[in-house]
């Protein structure tokens, strides 16, 4: 079970969190004309990298904040965690 450092609460076990997928996906702005391809990329297409992955976790049984976690998908090593609005290094 992963041990995730919530930037708001500190180290907490994985069972307090829900996984939220790729954190680098950016939602297209509202009212912007975009192609079907761009929209499909946003809704459906995700990379599944082996190695470093910046991902969202929702501290659902804790502070209820969405956080960003930089994790190695093959070793589960967690390098850094960020608040939702924090700049990514």
């Amino acid at each position: 079970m992963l041990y995730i450092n919530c930037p708001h609460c500190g180290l907490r076990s994985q069972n307090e969190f829900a996984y939220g997928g790729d954190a680098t996906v950016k939602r297209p702005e509202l009212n912007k004309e975009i192609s079907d391809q761009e929209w499909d990329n946003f809704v459906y297409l995700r990379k599944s990298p082996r190695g470093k992955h910046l991902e969202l976790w929702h501290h659902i049984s804790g502070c209820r904040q969405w956080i960003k976690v930089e994790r190695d998908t093959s070793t589960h090593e967690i390098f850094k965690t960020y608040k939702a609005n924090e700049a990514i290094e």
Partner: protein
Amino acid sequence: MSQDFRLDNVGMVNREKKISFKFNGKKYFGFEGDTIASALIANGVHLVGRSFKYHRPRGFFGVGVDEPYAILQLDRNNERDPNIRATEQEIFEGLEVKSVNCWPSVNFDIGAINNFLKMFFPAGFYYKTFMWPPSFWYKIYEPFIRMAAGFGEASIKHDKERYEHKYEYCDLLITGSGPSGLASAYAAAKNGARVILAEDKPRFGGSLLTSDVNIGNQTGVEWTEKIIAELKSMPNVTVKNRSQVFGYYDHNMLVMSERISDHLPKTQKYLPKQRLWYIRANEVLISSGSIERPLVFGNNDTPGVMLSSAAKEYMKVYGVLVGKKPLIFTNNDSGYETAIEFKKNGVNPIILDTRSDPSSDIIAEAKNLNIEIKFSHVVVAAKGYKKVKSADIAKISDDKKKLFNIENIECDCICVSGFWTPSIHLASQSGNKSKFNEKIDAFVPDKSKQQENTIGSANGIFTLEETIKDAFDKGFDVSNKITEKNNKISVPTIVEKKSTDHDKFWCVPLPKGKSYKRFLDFQNDVAVSDIELALREGFRSIEHVKRYTTLGMATDQGKTSNLNGLQLVSDIENKVVPQVGHTTFRPPYTPVSIGAIVGREVGKHSKPTRKSPMHSWHEKNNAVFVDAGVWLRPRYYKQGNEGLFEASKREAKNVRQNVGVCDVTTLGKIDVKGPDAAEFLNRVYTNAWLKLPVGKARYGVMLREDGIVMDDGTTTRISENHYHMTTTTAQAANVLSHLEYYLQLVWPELNVNVVSTTEQWAGAAIAGPNSRKLLMKLFPNLDVSNEGLPFMGYKEADLFGVPAKIYRISFSGELAYEINVESDNGYFMWEKIMEVGKEFQIQPYGTEALSTLRIEMGHVAGSELDGRTIPYDASLEGLVSKKKDFIGKRSLNRSAFTSTDREKLVGVVPIDKTTSIPEGSYIVKDPKAKLPNPKLGHVSASCWSVEYDNPFSLAIIKDGKNMIGQKLFAMSPLKNKTIPVEIVSSHYVDPEGKRVRS
């Protein structure tokens, strides 16, 4: 029966307390502190089971977790417990165990015929035998294999025992209380670290219990007792026996199973049977020790052949002799220790040493004791069927290839020692890649992967002095890292006998003309010949060889067989072991009971049960409850002999004719607050929200980004910057996460806060033509006329002294109101509604009537918004704004969503007006069409329309609206029904919506 093999005054069992137990129906006696194994051996019993494949007789091979043979079935408090290792289960008064894998009895086993049908069970027989003819599989082969497979039978009854889970944190977890575990725990604890020391056996000390050593002028046992007593007295230390750390998971999470009352005759009511510990440890020291390796020779599975260390432990710990004419077969000095122990207890052993001329302290001691030693000698084969009676022994050539002078000597047990295999399972589970140590012919942990270190013999260190020194250092180092303290303990002086190198020889060649089975894996009956065959058939990867032959795949996970298997493969392939590599170690290290894994999360405890504040009223009034998500909701209120159908019909009818009240507390409620709340709702919902005035409610639909309807509900503007959102019962949690996602990540610039208020409010829906009259009496000072409180209006008022919120919204399609009060006042509200409503013929209604009412109105719910429908499919196009953007809007342009033959919502009525249509039925044009019959759509919800007194269903079918008026068929292959139906509008009752606005 007398304990003929029990020694006087030796061992650690409690002679004061005699205990009786039954094995295969026969009564035996042992002492408190005995395991089933030690007690049976004391009684001279060595035949305890039959092997898995050939049904060969099985005795005892080890003395602990590595036991491959003595797997028994236990009866305890009328519960059956399979897969019990006799070497670990302690006896208690009244214990009953029996053998497995034998019928009709362990002594006379029909299955033993397999031993003579060996040719049908070669390596990979799963893939070769039982293949043809195919028709034999179902009736003959499968039942046969099922009967033969497995160790024992699990109970099919509900397990009444209690199991618990515990979460724990520590600075340092130490897995095993042998010399390295004790020393490191002591050093770390003295340096202020929070330590958990776990020992899987009842007694602490590991090898110190049986080895002849001296630590600081104390025997191993005395030193163990002293250290344990001191550790137990320290507040920063938890010491646990009967506790097996069986899994090493990510981020230093380890799981341990503690056997709390498995050794007690009857569990006290609140004492759990087992407890599973989830331990998050800053650091781990793996001190799981090592397991003696067998030597391989003919019939080496005969009862009476066992590990020499086990024989020694049976003597020293339990005071039990495994035999009175022992043969010790060894390739190293460990066998001598066992021989010396036999000699001390008045038994004359013979040592066969594969080495030609070794010399060491221990060998010298054995010689001094006049123990007969035959160097360059091996056991060729054990003789005897149910117990060793003699052995063929021989002199072996220096190249270990030729046997000379084969002779038969009498013996009643053969104690084997093929050196030691470190237990690297936990280190390997943590991700530590192991490395091969040539000196000990075994794998040891390599670089630490997680925060773990391996110490003692688990790390391939076999002298006590080095072990304890290293363990003191490691214990200090890891504690120093955490506590930053510098209290270092000095290492005691250690006296031990020096031993010399072991012989790499481990497998005795077959003499000419003999075809003895030489077993590698004792639990799965894998012999040398099976591995040879697998390699001849082309299997090369050790992982493939393992699966093909089942080597190491039994419940003991190859603790005694793994390394010999690898050695054999490398020998045949002319490789060295590290080239072959080893198979993956996976948790659990030892079998764990399902009960312990499940813990307390059984039955009703498997998820929380939420009850509304009015729950006890429902109970008192004969409500029949149904699970709605985590909530319990009344499905109907039973009157007299009514069933679900009659009761729900009565309740729904009463709503249409008079007035009904329904507990709607379970609806999700979310407070949306902030200056940008209107803008936020406008983005979340498909319809327009910017112009909703204060004091008004609106129905809204929200989508996922892929255009599928996520949820629906009404949201009311309570004040300028405060909205009260409702969600469906099932989606409440998901909707909150969804809103938080957009507020925190996508539009952080919006100044809005959301919080769940589901449990803060108790809700009652009052519906029916009499509902306004009832409301006038409940709120005499409030104007509830159609003008004062119009459809979708909202008012706050006082309900007999209790503040209440009144929403004029309707799910039933009738004139209706929802009243919310603070949860604590819910019961009061409900009683008042029932009391005042009496004169208007009020009746409570449950979820079944609620469904009936919404279905015949054509209101969609979960069965239509099933994760596949977009707003256009569910007749919700009026709610989709063309002007503004919202979550999921861009997806609605996708061609699949705009195609004309998309399945859409319609109503369905059976032509005969009497046959109910099963939910899930397919709508088809021609019921006799060739299968698969082209499907137009499916029936999503069915009810008995109380308005028209005939069945009515909702369906989602291709080209829905244009199908109205068509005569089609509803087919339910499950119910074997084909019903002629007519497609009608989904708005079956009051299509203009006059009632809700009346």
